[in-house]
């Protein structure tokens, strides 16, 4: 046996073999999650007051994409117009938030960072509250969405301006984001005081996040921004790895940390803001998915980012399915489900995990 290995022209060394093997393991995890997403997505589309079988759902999706086969028009309408946008929304939203979370944690060297660390959520919340309560719209007629988006990116802009004066260290950025979060939160609370009960309820509903406003009209924007942002962050995976080991080391390895961090912050903000402004604030996915995936496949961002992305989709699609079914026909806010199920699950994983993960 061993002599055979030796006769090879250039035998791969143990380390090379091990390294490549560990990559295969990581890819397997990602593939597994991907399969789960496809299955759950199909199954999720069968659930609802009107019964449609799993085969019919895939048939309808196939019909929608290729135009082949014949389908029941009622079922077709229900699946493509009512259920699929929601499911697609959950996939895109989970995908984007988890990618942002993974990138944010690496570049901030902080396991507590998530897409909302920079005050994106409270900014969006304020924007939404302004539109709902005061009827103030930055872009007349656009309603909550544009308001939420613009206010969500304000913190990043403030940090960008401040970075001209002071070095943009992770601590500076986080502290800055948190103080803006309090300011936005305070103004929102103030607005709530003068709001009518109906508006109050609307603001509240918006702030817990829902997939019900996702439609074929707004999905393309979300998909475009999330795809572009994720691809860019994936492209930066090596640099994100290097940023996570500290600024000094990173600079000496040729990464212009401060500039790259600002660029990443802008990309993350755009992605998260484009999601938040359509779905409201869905918490927990961005924070927890990267950690769970890190437990499974380690913290190399080349795999962590796609892994978190797919896992985020899985988590949100499952959460949304539960939100629709647990007290049907009432649909619960998906953010409530992600936190209620994700929280205990995450704590369980922390207890169970053998390795020190961070």
């Amino acid at each position: 046996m061993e002599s055979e290995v030796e006769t090879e022209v250039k035998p791969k060394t143990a380390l090379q073999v091990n390294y490549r093997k560990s990559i295969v393991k990581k890819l397997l995890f990602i593939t597994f999650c991907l399969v789960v997403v496809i299955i759950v997505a199909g199954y999720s589309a069968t659930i609802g007051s009107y019964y449609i079988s799993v085969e019919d759902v895939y048939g309808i999706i196939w019909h929608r994409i290729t135009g082949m086969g014949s389908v029941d028009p009622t079922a077709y309408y229900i699946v493509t117009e009512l259920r699929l946008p929601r499911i697609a929304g959950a996939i895109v939203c989970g995908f984007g938030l988890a990618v942002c979370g993974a990138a944010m944690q690496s570049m901030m060297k902080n396991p507590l960072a998530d897409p909302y660390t920079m005050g994106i959520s409270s900014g969006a919340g304020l924007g939404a509250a302004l539109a709902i309560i005061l009827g103030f719209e930055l872009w007349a007629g656009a309603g909550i969405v544009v308001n939420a988006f613009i206010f969500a990116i304000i913190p990043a802009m403030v940090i960008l301006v401040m970075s001209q004066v002071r070095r943009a260290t992770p601590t500076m950025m986080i502290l800055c984001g948190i103080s803006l979060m309090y300011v936005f939160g305070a103004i929102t609370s103030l607005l709530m005081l003068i709001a009518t009960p109906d508006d109050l309820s609307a603001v509240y509903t918006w702030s817990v996040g829902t997939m019900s406003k996702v439609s074929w009209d707004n999905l393309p924007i979300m998909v475009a921004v999330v795809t572009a942002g994720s691809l860019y962050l994936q492209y930066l995976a090596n640099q994100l790895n290097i940023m996570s080991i500290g600024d000094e080391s990173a600079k000496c390895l040729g990464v212009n940390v401060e500039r790259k961090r600002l660029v990443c912050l802008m990309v993350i903000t755009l992605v998260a803001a484009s999601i938040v402004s359509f779905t409201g604030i869905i918490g927990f996915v961005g924070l927890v998915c990267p950690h769970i995936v890190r437990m499974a496949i380690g913290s190399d961002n080349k795999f962590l980012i796609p892994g978190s992305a797919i896992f985020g989709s899985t988590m949100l699609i499952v959460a949304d399915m539960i939100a629709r079914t647990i007290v049907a026909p009432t649909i619960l806010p998906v953010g409530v489900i992600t936190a209620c199920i994700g929280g205990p699950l995450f704590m369980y994983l922390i207890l169970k995990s053998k390795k020190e993960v961070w």
Partner: protein
Amino acid sequence: MLMNVEEISFNYGTTEILRNVKFDLNEPNLTCIIGPNGVGKTTLARCVNRLLRPKCGKVMLSGVDTKDMTLRELAIHMGYVPNVSGDTFPMSVVDTVLMGRHPRGGWTPSDRDLQIVEDTIKIMGLEEYAMRDFNELSAGQHQKVMIARGLAQEPEVLILDEPTSNLDVRHQIEVMELLRELSREKKILVLMVCHDLNITARYADRIIMMSDGGVFSDGTAKEVMTEENIMKVYGVRTKVIEVEGRPHVILLSTVIK
């Protein structure tokens, strides 16, 4: 490769740390910077590798001002091994050392990259930890991984900030011998900030002794490590004897100034 440090001055706020520091490294060997605490050794190392921007003066690499290089270009020529490295997200030793290939590497590591990583891991005697998490290792092992990462960069100038501070005697000696050997073998200019007078005296090809933000004495171990110099710079009374052709410092007592 030649490196010229030209008249570097540096202030933290209004406190002057470095004043017109000037030296050239023109042959691949092990050069150590020594001096008492707070004299600016680490600051000097950081000015040289551009982590800090000197108030005035410049660093030339083979005639090119490092200020005109991108960080990536600089990282191809110059490696840096920091003194401490905080805990981060879990990364295997291989992944950590592999980061050293980043300035030269592509998006995915090539077989050559992995080969270099494996070689440096072997040189540093870290084989059995290769797939372990960096965070699980001891402080001494961390230092060795950091040195491995610096070597994986294949730099022409390697700057180390007290690379032996967490190592036991045996590993200190190993690392010093290794660095001296590598400097000759791979033609690397090794510049190292060091604290231990005897380790320095034993292994350094050249010693730059700093005092009061400037170069106090610069030369071979025999020229620099004298009772008089140590007295002036550290305020410590010593006896310097010769062991195997190298000066050896025996500490006697401090001197009340």
